[in-house]
């Protein structure tokens, strides 16, 4: 449950949210600009082609500024996307696993059991826990009372 923050903390939180949003929006803006410039260059090229056809000068190559705009827009879009997407992965399938250990490989989240020592070890001292986990424990009034509010 989010606890009530005092005014100073709230202000900090808002500023942090704002900065984080700005950073991701900036790179999204860069990608958007790059894609728009790319589309614009394509449109210009199409227009130039039809102009060439009309004036029957079909052997003239694309003007240098359209070519430059295409290349720059491409680079801009790629640079922006790299900043938006997550981290890169290694191509070699086995190298990714070099640091993997059985610590994590043996964990099967779908099959996690909770009948382990943690139930007792992490128990706070004023709580009582049944010491016979799998057998039918006699209803402990203290335990029942503590569990009541959780139903």
């Amino acid at each position, binding site marked *: 449950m989010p606890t009530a923050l005092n005014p100073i903390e709230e202000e900090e939180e808002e500023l942090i949210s704002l900065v984080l949003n700005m950073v991701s929006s900036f790179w999204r803006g860069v990608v958007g600009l790059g894609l728009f410039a790319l589309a614009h260059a394509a449109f210009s090229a199409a227009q130039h082609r039809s102009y060439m056809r009309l004036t029957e000068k079909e052997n003239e190559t694309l003007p240098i500024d359209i070519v430059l705009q295409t290349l720059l827009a491409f680079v801009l879009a790629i640079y922006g996307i790299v900043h938006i997407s997550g981290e890169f992965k290694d191509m070699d399938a086995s190298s990714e696993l070099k640091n*993997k*250990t*059985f610590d994590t490989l043996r964990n099967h989240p*779908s099959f*996690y*059991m909770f009948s*382990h020592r943690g139930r007792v070890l*992490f128990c706070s001292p004023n709580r009582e826990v049944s010491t016979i986990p799998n057998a039918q424990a006699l209803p402990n009034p203290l335990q029942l009372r503590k569990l009541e509010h*959780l139903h």
Partner: protein
Amino acid sequence: GHYCLDINVLIIVFTEMRDKLRKWREDNHRNSEQIVDVGEELINEHASKLGDDIWIIYEQVMIAALDCSRDDLAWTCLQELKKQFPGSQRVKRLAGMRLEALEKYEDASKQYDSILQDDPTNTAARKRKISILKAQGKSAEAIRELNEYLEQFVGDQEAWHELSELYINEHDYGKAAFCLEELMMTNPHNHLYCEQYAEVKYTQGGLENLELSRKYFAQALKLNNGNMRALFGLYMSASHIAASPKVNATVKKANVKYAAWATNQINRAYQVTKTNQLPVEELLLRSS
């Protein structure tokens, strides 16, 4: 000035916490105490910045809280998820897991049965029912149910690995090896499956199994030459083969050579880390 620096630090701290939680989630770490620590702080103090990530974090923290006997925190997370996703199967499963943690296996089983009634193909609920059997110590039944599950869902690697573990606990090494073979087939680049298979074969014993285990220890090393356990395994299996009375002279000689090579590699690894003052345990636990 000074205030700007604080904001930067706070941003870094927040993003680090969130990214750590994601890493633990994706890599299946079960460091529940840490997850509860970090997750609780994120939920209580940085909820607004998390956006939609908060729901998956609630799930992650809830499961970790069940591990740490933090039933209060688990209840809170569950309530938030129930509010946001009423009638969701995934949340129902979490409610069932909470009942399991409280050892109310009958109620949990009913919960999963109701999920399966609505959606008979729901794999998560079936796997939880198998976990209940495990928790109650009914390993034979659990194995039977898991086998049935795998007949239907042959591609579920987690389930294959779970089954191999159940067989190992029952000392049925032949069947455990079969499960690991399935995993090796679908993950040929994973050195850990090779290594575990080799260990199972080594445990089974007998000359044929020892030779097979040596080969798979070698394969694990080929995939990851930093796997210390595979190196020790190679040494042990080669030495045992060489010491066996049933082998001829050439095989014996070859295995002595393999064992010597392994010894050499192990010594070199110790030399390198001796200067780093790593304790022996850490060395043995690396890649294990």
